């Protein structure tokens, strides 16, 4: 069994949460955040994880080697608001052992 990994998530109110995420359930970061209810339902993962709404945008503050950005994610971020150089869509970051220690801040709701 794959071990859980630890993530540091700062929610939209600025509160830091240190949480454990499974790596064997094909979960992505957006889904982990929803499973811990760190953002209000209906304000995150609206498109379900298809990189089509940017409601799961977050800023990645650690130096992890992230999965390469797909064209869909890149173009969605091109139309999202509050975008920074370290913006990613949470739904496109899969939970793998390499993501252990990932630090992210949720982008404002828009």
């Amino acid at each position, binding site marked *: 069994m794959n071990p859980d990994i630890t993530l540091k998530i700062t929610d939209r109110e600025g509160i830091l949460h240190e949480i454990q995420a499974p790596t064997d359930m094909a979960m992505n970061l957006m889904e982990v955040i929803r499973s811990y209810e760190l953002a209000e339902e*209906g304000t995150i993962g609206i498109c379900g994880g298809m990189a089509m709404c940017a409601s799961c945008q977050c800023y990645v503050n650690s130096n992890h080697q992230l999965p390469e950005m797909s064209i869909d994610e890149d173009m969605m971020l091109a139309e999202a608001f509050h975008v920074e150089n370290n913006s990613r869509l949470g739904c496109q970051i899969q939970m793998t052992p390499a993501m252990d220690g990932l630090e992210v801040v949720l982008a404002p709701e828009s």
Partner: protein
Amino acid sequence: MITTDILIIGAGPTGLFTVFEAGLLKLRCHLIDALPQAGGQCSEIYPKKPIYDIPAYPEILAGDLTDKLMEQIKQFEPGFTLGERAETIEKQEDETFIVTTNKGTKHHAKIVAIAGGLGSFEPRKPPIPNITNFEDKGVEYIIRDPEYYSNKKVVISGGGDSALDWAIFLTDVAASVTLIHRRNEFRGALDSVDKVQELKNAGKITMITPAEVKGIVGTDKVEGVAVVQNGGEEFTIETDHFIPLFGLSPKLGPIANWGLEIEKNAIKVNNALDYQTNIPGIYAIGDVNTYPGKLKLILCGFHEATLMCQSAYKRIFPDKKYVMKYTTVGGIDGFDGTRKEAPKAVVKKIE
């Protein structure tokens, strides 16, 4: 006034299937949706994406699911009020309801079924500090009447199909069209991208990329927009209209003020029985409701719609006896006079 038995708010898959289940009980339905077409998210967000968990469909495109549902409910002649948002609800003395849309269309129904998904789709507004001061004073998030821009200077912002399509369309109407996008790349249909390129080469569209509108200039109305291109100095472009087209996002909206119990941006219902809300006669089905163990799945919405219709029937006809009948046994009698039924067995003697 539009009158019906069940008024369904939201024409997504759950709302559409409700028409079928209601039709089996000889109840008529009318649907309201803020979008200009039926299908909800399936049509608006991901029509070309496959769904794999609709029973008996190993794979179906979301757009095709909508088409199939429309076909399935056709004989029950649902009415539609599209492009309007349900705004207010008034319970009448006889326990019926009048629902009025943002455009003033009134609907009178015995039962209200809210199948509103994540809410009605509203344009996403860019976070420009003074933008709300200029709404309808030169800032429009939706183009309602293109002629409104006749001989006006127009700035469009966005990188998707609607930004491209409207930029193309307005070149024939407006005095000038400027398209601003944060990237040099656009994700619209290839045809549209090529057409914009052509119009740019012909000097009919001014493109400013990679750039972003940071502010709006004007006193009583839009006179210009402040633009930053490629991280450079802010500059102003004169314009009469600024049209940000950044897609739509769902908001629960006015329904949140109908006196219904809301939890986690969803409407609480009684899932032990019939998905009724805290207001008798108002039901909530599909993604818009919540109860312990709720799953936002289309197939769960179908189930909820089915139970809700049985309860609606009992509410409308409390004294009538009824038991559920299989469609294979009873066939389907449409309100349009059509009848579908299982073929009769053929009996023939062998000599």
